[in-house]
């Protein structure tokens, strides 16, 4: 139990995908500056990343490695992620049309999210236990969602702040992200 907790804390805070591994920055910047869509997108990423962590782990260890095709994993993982996002798109459109309308524009950001591909690629070498892979995928996704929501909230405030003209737009966003990364370095000794 303590192991699981440590693993989750490590994946969410200490080895945060965005702020210590610098994955998924494009979707972080592209997700826009308000909390509501960020919440939806975090939920999407948690779902897709957890599922793809599990699926990719199974594919890698029970299909690609036995056939000595480990070098194909990038291609295969992209395929799996695209499949999951397309599936979510279909199901959402039918079951929750309002949600689909709200999140539809962000689905490509999830599909082309380097955080998802990066986490599954990194985990495929490091982890050989299905359950641990699933859990660390989930933890990474929660960490991504957390940063996404925090960052969106910060940008909501930045919108009202008096920013020098030279810093406006993506410049101040990047500075903010850098400061957030500095803050997250404080978690380094936690696990």
């Amino acid at each position: 139990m303590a192991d699981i907790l440590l693993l989750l804390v490590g994946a969410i805070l200490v080895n945060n995908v965005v702020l210590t591994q610098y994955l998924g920055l494009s979707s972080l910047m592209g997700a826009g500056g308000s909390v509501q869509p960020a919440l939806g997108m975090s939920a999407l990423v948690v779902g897709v990343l957890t599922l793809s962590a599990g699926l990719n782990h199974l594919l890698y260890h029970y299909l690609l490695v036995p056939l000595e095709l480990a070098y194909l994993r990038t291609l295969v993982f992209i395929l799996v992620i695209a499949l999951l996002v397309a599936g979510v798109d279909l199901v959402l459109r039918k079951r929750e049309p309002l949600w689909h309308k709200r999140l539809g524009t962000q689905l490509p950001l999830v599909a082309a999210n380097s955080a998802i591909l990066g986490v599954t690629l990194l985990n495929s070498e490091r982890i050989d236990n299905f359950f641990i892979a699933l859990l660390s995928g989930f933890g990474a996704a929660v960490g991504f969602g957390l940063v996404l929501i925090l960052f969106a909230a910060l940008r909501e405030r930045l919108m009202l702040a008096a920013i020098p003209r030279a810093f406006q737009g993506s410049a101040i966003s990047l500075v903010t992200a850098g400061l957030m990364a500095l803050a997250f370095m404080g978690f380094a000794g936690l696990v």
Partner: protein
Amino acid sequence: MSLLSAILVLLVLALGCGVVLSQLARKFGADEPALVDRIDALLPQTQCGQCGHPGCRPYATAIAEGEAINRCPPGGDATIRSLARLLGQAPLPLDPTHGKEDVRKVAYIRENECIGCTKCVKACPVDAILGAAKHMHTVITSECTGCDLCVAPCPVDCIDMIPLKNEHQRWHWPRPDAAEARHQLIASDRLHEARA
């Protein structure tokens, strides 16, 4: 050998993904939302709720799931006909339990009688009434759909529904008399008539 297996694995995986997606699409009916959109486009967007649904889109969803097409009084005969054509059904007469077809109207607030209670503002489904508490309200005519929903809540009865005059944006040729039109049909009309 290894190259062959690589190609084979990718092919099989891609095929598997395709099959899964096509099954999902079949199960969740990817085309149905498009149908709802097309039905919604034919409805008059008054959001009046006379059909028994809270707005036009919910009614469009209900029609897509099999509800009767003759429950929209503001759309009237014209809407029922175009819905029937879209869905391949026979056009029905308007269901009188939901109301009767009327000329298009627009709400008008007699402004010196308005007490600024904001009740009509809350009732308006399309946000066409402008005003704040204890200030006079008024209707944005171009946004008003003439749905009548603001008339009942008004405590001082200062809202009139005024029939819209025919202006050139809304003017249509009067429909030809059915008996007279019968021998003026052209070949492509016969098809529609046979289908109707």
